[in-house]
């Protein structure tokens, strides 16, 4: 393992909503140029974890370290300022707006002064084209509405945007969940690209087949608890799938669903 300080680390964090214990004693680390995958089924606590990491709310217990220093975020703005950029599932993109208007939404480049300060449209268009081109993203026309892009292209634009705005840690919330095989592959390529650019990536997913090829570490969540933090060499893909699906539960399910081969002779017709 490298001895570089983690870009972002949480230790033994917990979160309560009234009497509901949404997250209990979860630890996670992400280093520069590495991909940490967070796996979990629905209700495992992934969303709560993302919201803590992206500064929506602080954890009730546990430590939150940025570059090894304790940090406390009270808003997503704080997290962004610390270089933590989250690509939410809804992508924070407006489908009816053009690619370049979306790319700079909320951080528009301006020119001019005072009341004549204006959105630098030419720069925004040009930089959108070059930034996406640099990542090998092929938007045919930056003027087309984001809603007309495919799912994978949309995720790609969102990731490129996060990288452009100086993210050091990229949190991706289920970026492949609604996508077909080919489109998901496109997104996995972006994850690898971000990693190779030296970003720390936290990839949240419920699909171990997407996580395993790109991940360096795997944290599996279940019912708010961590089922362990595994480095890639320590764990096989099949083991990850089993862990994720809840091992014994899956066996039980398989048993329940199993039926003897349909043989008419075994099922005599009951004649009254």
């Amino acid at each position: 393992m490298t001895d570089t300080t983690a870009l972002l680390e949480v230790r033994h964090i917990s979160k309560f909503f009234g009497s509901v214990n949404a997250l209990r004693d979860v630890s996670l680390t992400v280093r520069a140029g590495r991909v940490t995958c967070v796996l979990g089924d629905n209700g495992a606590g992934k969303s709560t974890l993302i919201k803590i990491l992206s500064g929506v709310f602080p954890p009730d217990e546990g430590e939150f370290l940025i570059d090894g220093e304790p940090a406390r975020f009270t808003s997503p703005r704080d997290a962004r300022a610390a270089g933590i950029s989250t690509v939410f599932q809804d992508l924070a993109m407006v489908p009816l707006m053009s690619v370049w208007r979306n790319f700079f939404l909320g951080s528009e480049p301006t020119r001019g002064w005072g009341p004549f300060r204006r959105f630098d449209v030419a720069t925004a268009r040009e930089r959108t084209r070059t930034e996406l081109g640099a990542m090998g993203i092929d938007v045919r026309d930056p003027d087309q509405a984001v809603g007309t892009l495919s799912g994978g292209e949309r995720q790609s634009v969102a990731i490129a945007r996060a990288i452009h705005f100086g993210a050091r840690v990229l949190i991706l919330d289920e970026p492949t969940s609604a996508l077909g095989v080919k489109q998901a592959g496109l997104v996995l390529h972006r994850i690898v690209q971000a990693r190779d650019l030296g970003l720390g990536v936290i990839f949240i997913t419920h699909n171990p087949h997407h996580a395993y090829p790109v991940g360096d570490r795997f944290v599996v969540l279940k019912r708010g608890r961590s089922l362990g933090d595994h480095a890639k060499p320590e764990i096989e893909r099949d083991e990850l799938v089993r862990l994720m699906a809840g091992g014994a539960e899956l066996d039980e399910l398989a048993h329940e669903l199993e039926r003897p081969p349909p043989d008419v002779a075994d099922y005599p017709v009951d004649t009254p």
Partner: protein
Amino acid sequence: MTAQPTPVAASVPPAGPDERLAATSWLTRALRRPALGALLGAVVVFVVFTLTDQQHLWLTQTGFESWAQQASFYGIVAVPVGLLMIGGEFDLSTGGMTGFTAIIAALLVGRAHWNAWAAIVVTFAVAGLIGLVNGYVVVKSKLPSFIVTLATYFVVRGLSIGGVLLVNHGSTNVGIGGTDHSGLDSAKAVFGSTFAGNPGLANGYATEILWFVAVTLVAVWVLARTTFGNWVFAAGGDQVAARNVGVPVARTKVSLFVATSMAAALVGVITFTQTSNAVSEQGVGNEFYFIIAAVAGGCLLTGGYGSVVGAALGACIIGMAFQGVIYSGWDSSWDFTFVGGILFLAVGVNAFIYRRATRARR
């Protein structure tokens, strides 16, 4: 452990010049503009009235002046109403506001004997405040703006009847009398007079038209070329997404409500200075024309899409319709049906353009 590159299921598409770009023809580009339907509609309406003109006035200065002024009356408010609709909200109080603000100005000048400019400043301030309340209530309560501004509309309408009866000796007609009022002449010159008059021929064009052009130009610039304009699209298109990337959605919307109220006040001040008079209930019902103009101009009822130029063209269509019917010698009782037909047509054409604009082109 190493961060060795791992094989991934699909391949990255090749970068480089894209032959598919050529597919975005000028026609596609034109069809992507939400104002196209309104432009075609305006041209058609203009040509129709040119052909049906019975009084040989349609193509004269008088003809142009008459519909342009009518268009300005609707357009000054329709343009910010269009902006607000792009921002995802409605304002039904605008019609009542045009009358209410005219009454405030008339009362301050005619009854309180204020300087006309002071009265106008206060009128705009009151309108701005009402817009602020509209916006604030909509943003805070998360109620549909349709309902909130409908309430405002009735409150304002009641005030401009009941309130006026109270302070205006039981009359709903607020005149300002024949006496001299300080500042009124200069205020008239700016808001309610004409220019480029031709002695012995015509009165010239109403300054109202200049205000319409100015409001439209400012709105076009704001929407297309400012950060605020980008926020307007985002607030109407997907406010959760907009908030997530740091767009001040609430502030954007409140600003737009203030803009529609102030625009209504501008029309109120213009009509007051033109006629030196204000009547309760004037302007009532106009909110529908403002919205019709914006919708005909390609503004989507659900927000996030639309055009300022389109809203202005929509106002021109309505202005032309009302005046053209007169010049053509048609029965003007059919005005409303005509406007309704235009609305149907415009919505149909715009739905088509909208589908073209948002359809995947690949």
